């Protein structure tokens, strides 16, 4: 004797349930109490069991469709029994389901390319009803956390989404477009009732440029392959300022700036300290008789280090001119690779930006780099009293693998002497 099972009424306000999953195929034997179907309301999932032992004769609704409560859901009986009298009005006369039941909502979602719900929420995490709600209300979660699911195993139910939709801040259309563009929303919305506005979306993550990637690699290598440390000292900058003032006051002389002068002094110092005008590669020190000076240069594309070849052969004026040429090329982006390689020592100046002390990073295989800092007033004891002098800070980074503290300090002392005697070194 065939018996039918109705769609249960799972709540006062529930008028229809969604057929989430059929566990049995028509023709399958079923025993009393065995689960035949999973159905869902907007708040809960529910298992429908067989009331008797027998064979599943018919299923009246497909997976993913809505069935009104109290409608006959399936029939269990003896094979061959007629089930037509149980068929609810409007149910298709077909007992065999499609071979591969595909949730209708998912199909619809994939048909609507602008609603990436299916992609945002993997099947199984979200109930078909929830999926339908999301689709109808245009909910997407790209860049935002999904709501917590209250269903079994954290499964997101329709009610969870409804709660979120009506209680949480909306996202403005412009903000939604920025999200689709890859921007990420964080914190709280700044619009009316907490609405997320376009201005709340941070800039989308962006791949760094090729040159930036190269800088990143070199900086990492620098730290990974050396034992660098920095010594800091200062030199009386009175001479530098005096020379600079003379240059400014004269006409027809090259416009040599403080950085050029310090670089020039450093080159003179390097001629006396060949250990630092060197490269350290594979356990071998390569000292250089010639000074090819690299100088850090801030460009729109990032840090570049142009190189003045045979800088020791240049006068201060010639050095300054060459540095200006190379800087212009670097800034314009038409500097050749040759002009960016082969340095034996590097100078980096952040003093013009007001930096008082920093730790320059080595450009391996070079063994030293000089950081030039800002000129500041410094109190010194002189004769019986205190005097204020202009003082320029110097930060020398060295590779401790080959240069110990004392020789490093001695070299820094030589640079200081050169700087303090710059008037004698370069005549304008």
């Amino acid at each position: 004797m065939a018996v039918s099972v109705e769609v249960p009424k799972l709540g006062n306000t529930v008028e229809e349930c969604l057929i989430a999953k059929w566990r049995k195929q028509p023709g399958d034997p079923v025993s009393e109490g065995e689960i035949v179907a999973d159905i869902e309301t907007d708040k809960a999932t529910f298992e429908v069991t067989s009331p008797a032992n027998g064979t599943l004769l018919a299923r009246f609704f497909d997976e993913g469709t809505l069935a009104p409560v109290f409608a006959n859901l399936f029939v269990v009986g003896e094979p061959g029994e007629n089930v037509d009298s149980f068929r609810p009005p409007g149910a298709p006369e077909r007992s065999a389901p499609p071979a591969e039941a595909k949730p209708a909502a998912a199909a619809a979602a994939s048909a609507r390319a602008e609603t990436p719900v299916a992609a945002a929420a993997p099947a199984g995490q979200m109930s078909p009803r929830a999926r339908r709600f999301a689709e109808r209300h245009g909910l997407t979660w790209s860049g935002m956390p999904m709501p917590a699911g209250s269903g079994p195993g954290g499964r997101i139910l329709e009610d969870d989404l409804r709660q979120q939709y009506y209680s949480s801040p909306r996202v403005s259309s412009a903000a939604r477009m920025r999200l689709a563009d890859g921007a990420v929303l964080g914190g709280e919305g700044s619009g009316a009732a907490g609405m997320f506005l376009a201005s709340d979306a941070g800039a989308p993550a962006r791949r760094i440029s090729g040159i930036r990637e190269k800088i990143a690699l070199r900086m990492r290598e620098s730290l990974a392959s050396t034992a660098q440390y920095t010594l800091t000292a200062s030199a009386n900058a009175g001479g530098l300022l005096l020379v600079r003032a003379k240059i400014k006051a004269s006409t027809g002389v090259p416009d040599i700036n403080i950085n050029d002068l310090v670089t020039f002094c450093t080159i003179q110092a390097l001629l006396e300290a060949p250990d630092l005008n060197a490269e350290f590669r594979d356990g071998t020190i390569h000292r250089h008789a010639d000074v090819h000076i690299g100088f850090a240069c801030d460009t729109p594309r990032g840090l570049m280090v142009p190189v003045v070849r045979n800088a020791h052969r240049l006068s201060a004026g010639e050095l300054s001119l060459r540095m200006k040429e190379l800087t212009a090329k670097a800034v314009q982006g038409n500097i050749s690779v040759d002009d960016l390689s082969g340095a034996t020592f590097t100078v980096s100046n952040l003093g013009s930006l007001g930096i008082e002390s920093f730790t320059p990073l080595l450009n391996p295989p070079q063994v030293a780099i000089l950081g030039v800092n800002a000129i500041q007033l410094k109190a010194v004891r002189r004769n019986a009293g205190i005097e204020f002098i202009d003082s320029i800070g110097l930060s020398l980074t060295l590779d401790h693998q080959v240069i110990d503290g004392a020789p490093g300090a001695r070299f820094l002392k030589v640079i200081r002497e050169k700087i303090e005697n710059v008037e004698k070194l370069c005549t304008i």
Partner: protein
Amino acid sequence: MYDLIVVGAGPGGYEAAAHAARMGKKVALIEKERLGGTCLNVGCIPAKTFLRSSKLFHECREAAAYGVRLGSVEFDMPAVVERKNRVVKTLTKGVEGMLKRAGVESLQGQARLIGRNAVQVGDRRYEASHILIATGSRPAVPPIPGIRSGSVFDSDTVFTLDHLPREVAIIGGGYIGLEFACFFHEAGAKVAVYEMLPQIAAGSDTEISSRMLQILKRQGVEFHLSAKVLAVEGDTIHYAGADGAKASATADCILNATGRTPSVAGLGLEDIGVDFGPRGIRTSEQGKTNVAGIWACGDVTGRRMLAHAATREGIVAVNNMFGHKDRIRYRAIPAVIYTHPEVASVGWTEEELKQAGVEYRKSVVPMAVAGRFLVEHEDPAGMVKVLAGARFHEILGVHAIGDGSSEFIVAAAVMVETEMCVADASEIVFPHPTVSEALREAILGVH
């Protein structure tokens, strides 16, 4: 001990006081003059009642064009003033009743802050956890010799006029000057406006203000732009024109409409270290001043100087002081100039977008695309301009000139506030036939 003392009973102060009282807080509202502040007594409301009368008068004189023949029509200034007083009284009573129902205690007198939690009124001292300064602003007095003389009216004293002047000289072509220019002109006076800048309605979208200039000129208002008023002597105004040439003009009414200055004097702000300058008390977007427990809203902060901005600022301050996070966003505060035609706007102007380097699209349609506008106007001058982001077409600004625009600008404000894109806004149905359809057409025109 009060939870909140509000100083100043204008639209910033009284709304904030009522809001706090409705939250169950013990609130006192101190006012030295009249309930309702500038807006109700010598600002928005009186000006609009005057403009209502002048518009009606003007329409009566134009009635024949609409097929209505009238006998002689007269402008009865005393009756206009009487009506204005009646309207103001009704609204003031309304505010009074509203405050009473909300449970706000009203105090009369000049308040002086004597601590971050204490206010002196006369010889009485009142204490509160929070103090909200909402003392508004007063007409600015620029350094022009003679401008302080009794013969020069300002936007406070002009409402005491008991007769219509024959000739009116208005110093200042901002929204105050323009509204009075419109009133006096429609009422039948000869009006000249002297503006220091090369454009009128400074801060408005230039395309709109140029259009307005053109329309008002056509109506017969005289404009002197880039004109510097040098001195006022009795009924004579001395000025240097755009070319620098000095000239003089006489008028039996001279109106100083050069803007408004925050009312910060006499409050004791210096004594307790509240940070303020000539542009007003500095506040955060939560309404906080630099002194904990002291808040400010409205014209006294010198920010937007609009009644509805003051109201919102006051409510934002109250929400924050009692633990509800809120902040004011100035970008979507609409502004209206109640001339005929009206000017209504919200959001970015085209000049602001250019200056900020924001890429945008614009769409401009004549108001006459709306059938209703044509129905209402024999001379259908006006336009609606929509500015939208170049990439997403989010609506950034809406600027309109034409009667009726003040009533539909709030729809545009919602669009700007919620960053609606043109595609979303295009799905909104506008009632037909209304002037607002011009906004719809302008939105659809963004490509």
